[in-house]
């Protein structure tokens, strides 16, 4: 009888068998990686805004406190986007007729809201509360990154559930001193070397809830 297959098919067939398995594994890893990549978490994308508002300028250079605009951050679930009025407090005087501030003035005149583009988007079924984090000493920059160096704000953290859990499992690493000076709103705060123990100490003083409580489903989902 005659050969049906050429000698080379021996190698080809074995190789393809192995590569099939290999490729499958590779694909899985790729997908899991992709899900964590900035591509799907929307990290590091600065969004064009109706007014190119620069946090770098206002926070970094002028040193305006976060709470001046984001008034709800200590009391409410949402930090809150400031009303046009807040802008006008200064800009009715400063740069009062700068062309690039026209949308602000226009909004104020016509009583039409400015439509900012949302940067940090949690899924709608996640109930994050700013006030409790701020009050317990979790700093803004812990999640939002160095806002004071962002001309246009972008999302610094992945905002994935595993990322949230990481902190809810050991909060002490994120707790900052509240007195003598409240470091929560300090954009340049760096954790000291002894953060581990002082973090534990803070957690105790501020009655941070146990990991079991902080990782219960209904803590964030309702």
């Amino acid at each position: 009888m005659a050969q049906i297959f050429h000698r080379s098919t021996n190698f080809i067939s074995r190789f393809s068998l192995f590569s099939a398995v290999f490729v499958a594994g590779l694909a899985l890893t790729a997908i899991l990686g992709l899900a964590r990549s900035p591509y799907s978490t929307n990290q590091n994308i600065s969004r064009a805004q109706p007014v190119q508002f620069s946090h770098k300028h206002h926070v970094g250079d002028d040193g305006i406190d976060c709470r001046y605009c984001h008034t709800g951050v200590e009391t409410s679930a949402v930090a809150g986007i400031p009303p046009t009025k807040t802008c006008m407090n200064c800009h009715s005087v400063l740069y009062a007729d700068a062309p690039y501030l026209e949308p602000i003035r226009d909004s104020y005149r016509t009583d039409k809201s400015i439509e900012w583009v949302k940067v940090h988007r949690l899924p709608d079924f996640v109930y994050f509360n700013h006030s409790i984090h701020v009050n317990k000493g979790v700093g803004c920059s812990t999640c939002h990154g160095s806002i004071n160096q962002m001309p246009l704000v972008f999302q610094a953290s992945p905002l994935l559930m595993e990322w949230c859990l990481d902190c809810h499992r050991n909060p002490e690493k994120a707790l900052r001193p509240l007195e003598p000076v409240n470091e929560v709103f300090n954009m340049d705060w760096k954790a000291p070397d002894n953060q581990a123990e002082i973090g534990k100490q803070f957690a105790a003083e501020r009655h941070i809830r146990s990991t079991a409580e902080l990782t219960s489903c209904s803590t964030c989902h309702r």
Partner: protein
Amino acid sequence: MIQHRSHIYGVIGEFESPEQLVHAAAKIREEGYRYYECYTPFPLEGLPEAMGMRRNMVPLITLIGGLVGGLGGFGFQYWVNVISYPMNIAGRPLNSWPAFIPVTFELTILCASLSAVFGMLALNGLPQPHHPIFNAPRFSHASSDRFFVCIQARDKKFHLEATARFLQGLSAHHVSEVQDD
């Protein structure tokens, strides 16, 4: 002729019945040949013994596969429920080991079976669509109703004519040489 030896894979002989092949296989071994192989349409009782084969590795591989699957399976479940994300489910303990048994068992079977099959294929060097033996003219009968034996050229006792004669002596039909292209 000598210079052609490299192109010859071996000499093949054909038998009518299993008994003849088994008997022949034993004889060839007594003759001192080592590199020879029998080809049959179905497994023959006694042939492995006649060819002096020893127990093979497949069972061991399977055992290892099974152990890996089982231990890995339980370990994984323990890690998930006790270490990775401990949750109070229905007031059951974190390590509800009785509930982890079914998955452990299934994984044991799965891994054992996979390693049995792929172990067997690997040891047999399959897949191997191309093989010199297929050059043998009447070899298609090997998967139907004939029983073949092939003494390979690499055997140091191999000598084309002598070996061919020897096979005919064992009352093999259609003794012919197999080209190794």
